[in-house]
């Protein structure tokens, strides 16, 4: 069992700073997901943890031991690559023993590890095949097997599922989750896919342009994103952002939509009481926090909702939910609703918006208020 600590980490390629002051810590057994758009530095960070890239400044500690200057092989980590990186000229068995051979593990012990892991991943029938004779999902398993035969301190995954088709990806996701529950190793998992991050991770690190935006539990990341970027990156369909203005009345604080009819939407009492009147603001509402007006869902859970009228421009059924492209006042928004209650195109419908779940952002700094 081992912990990981990243402190004030910076990485530059020439004059380009790719990682800017990253601070991250993972407790023993934790599953950390690194997410962010393409090019934000996820793979670079992973390579630095693995020792495949040098740090420009800052510290990497595994089990409180500074490993900045240790070679990859001395860090006691195992890594699964996006491309799987199986050795093409070796059989599956040789792929899995290669690392143990390098470390002079006795033959009997190697065999034991192969037996254990191939049973776990159900790849026994594949042991004598070459990687070119495997399907994508099988290669993925073998790549995981290669990491699992050793007993490393850390597991690093770089988008291990991104080359699989949608169905297999979901299957493997579940397997990885099971695997982690069984093995309980500290894991850093890079992914593009926010659903993977939400389902697997105990904590998620959201990165953008080399900056760590937020590092928190999936629930907090989803419900309390620190800024507009995190809010829009996590969640699908993405969060709606509506420009609004603060209005104060004797009953409390409310919002007036910039593109709306001028009616005041009250904020839950006791919240945001320090907002200056007339200041501009961005209201963030997730698509699933719209519900049919009469159901009073928020109120039944002790929350508070406001009514917004939306004109339905387009209806996209996905099966489990129906996505509505709507206009609220003058601005576009996306609403997710139950297929059975979906309005039709062209309707104007009233929706209740759960204000307890809504987020307010500063339009200039984009930070959540």
């Amino acid at each position, binding site marked *: 069992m081992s912990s990981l600590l990243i402190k004030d980490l910076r990485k530059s390629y020439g004059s380009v700073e790719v990682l800017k002051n990253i601070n991250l810590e993972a407790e023993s057994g934790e599953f950390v997901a690194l997410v962010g758009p393409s090019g934000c530095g996820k793979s670079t960070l992973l390579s630095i943890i*693995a020792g495949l890239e040098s740090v420009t400044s800052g510290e990497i500690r595994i089990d409180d031991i500074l490993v900045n200057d240790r070679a990859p092989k001395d860090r006691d*980590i195992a890594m699964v*690559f996006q491309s799987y990186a199986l*050795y093409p000229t*070796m059989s599956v068995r040789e792929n899995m023993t290669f*690392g143990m051979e*390098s*470390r002079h593990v006795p033959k009997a012990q190697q065999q034991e590890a192969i037996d254990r892991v191939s049973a776990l991943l159900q790849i026994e029938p594949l042991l004598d095949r070459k990687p070119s004779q495997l399907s994508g999902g099988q290669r993925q398993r073998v790549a995981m097997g290669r990491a699992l035969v050793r007993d490393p301190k850390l597991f690093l995954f770089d988008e291990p599922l991104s080359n699989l088709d949608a169905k297999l990806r979901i299957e493997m996701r579940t397997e990885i989750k099971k695997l982690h529950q069984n093995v309980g190793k500290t894991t850093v998992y890079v992914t593009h896919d926010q659903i993977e991050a939400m389902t697997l991770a105990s904590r998620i690190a959201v990165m953008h342009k080399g900056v760590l935006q937020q590092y928190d539990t999936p629930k907090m990341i989803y419900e309390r994103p620190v800024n507009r970027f995190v809010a829009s990156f996590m969640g699908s369909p993405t969060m709606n952002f509506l420009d609004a203005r603060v209005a104060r009345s004797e009953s409390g604080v409310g919002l007036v939509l910039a593109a709306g009819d001028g009616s005041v939407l009250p904020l839950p009492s006791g919240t945001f009481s320090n907002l200056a009147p007339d200041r501009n603001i961005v209201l963030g509402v997730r698509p699933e926090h719209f519900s049919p007006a009469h159901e009073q869902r928020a109120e039944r859970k002790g929350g508070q909702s406001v009514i917004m009228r939306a004109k339905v421009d387009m209806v996209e059924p996905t099966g489990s939910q129906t996505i509505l492209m709507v206009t609220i006042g003058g601005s576009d928004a996306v609403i997710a609703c139950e297929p059975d209650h979906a309005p039709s195109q062209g309707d104007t419908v009233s929706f209740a918006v759960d204000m307890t779940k809504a987020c307010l952002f500063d339009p200039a700094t984009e930070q959540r208020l």
Partner: protein
Amino acid sequence: MADAVPHRDFDPLSTGSFRQRILSKTSVYMALTIFALGYLVPLVIILINTLRPLDEIVRSGFIAWPHDVSLQYWGEAWSTFCIGGTCEGVSRFFKNSLMMAVPATILSTAIGLVNGYVLSKWRFRGSDALFGIITLGVFMPAQMTLLPWAFVLGKLGLSNTISGLVLVHTVQGLSFTTLFCRNYFVNIPDDLIKAARIDGAGFWRIFRRIILPLSPPIIIVAVIWQFTGIWNEFLFGTVFTSGANQPITSAIVAFSGSGTGERHYNVEAAAVIMAAIPPLFIYLVGGKYFVRGLTQGAVK
């Protein structure tokens, strides 16, 4: 296991009407036959002349049908003919050439593999510049290097030795083998190297266990290229060695150009063909892989 799929090459001439097809096929085969004859006729003439007695060649000229056919001139050419004072035929020079070409091919290919590995997978500051400088040798005319080599060989005490020629050809060949190998290895995914490093393998273990097993196509290319090039090379052999230490290419020129007495055309022809056999052999054995290696990427 791949099923045996009946494979048919794309044949652009098999379309159109029957007459058109006959016409197009005939013209293509005619053209190819003419070119093939153009290349092969000289070889056939030389081959025939190795079998004819000298007086017959002198009487009826080079291009004539043989009457008294005999293999004795091959024997003479191999073991008894006198060249530059020694009467051992070309066998001695043939051995010289082997002693030169085989080690030089092996060395230049081996070093080229390691160079290519370093320059593609263990880049360092300035490695691209270094690669550029090494490949400059590909474009450098051999004549330019004569004087420096004469100096170096003299200093090392390797003038007029086969070892000297091995050194020259190894170094001269490095540019090519490094270029071939680096460009081939660049296509091997870096992730393989990273994975191996995490697996605890070092520089040489990665080379032996991961790079080399992927290299046969490029090794074949380098070996064929180097062996034929070194075997057929003539300038260095003539300039840096003399007498009994010459490679076969230089020796043949020496005896045909000696100018004293009559020319033994039949023996000379046999010697020339003997000198051409090893590269031909290498090409026949490895030619298929040569083309494949030049066009194929490292990892599918």
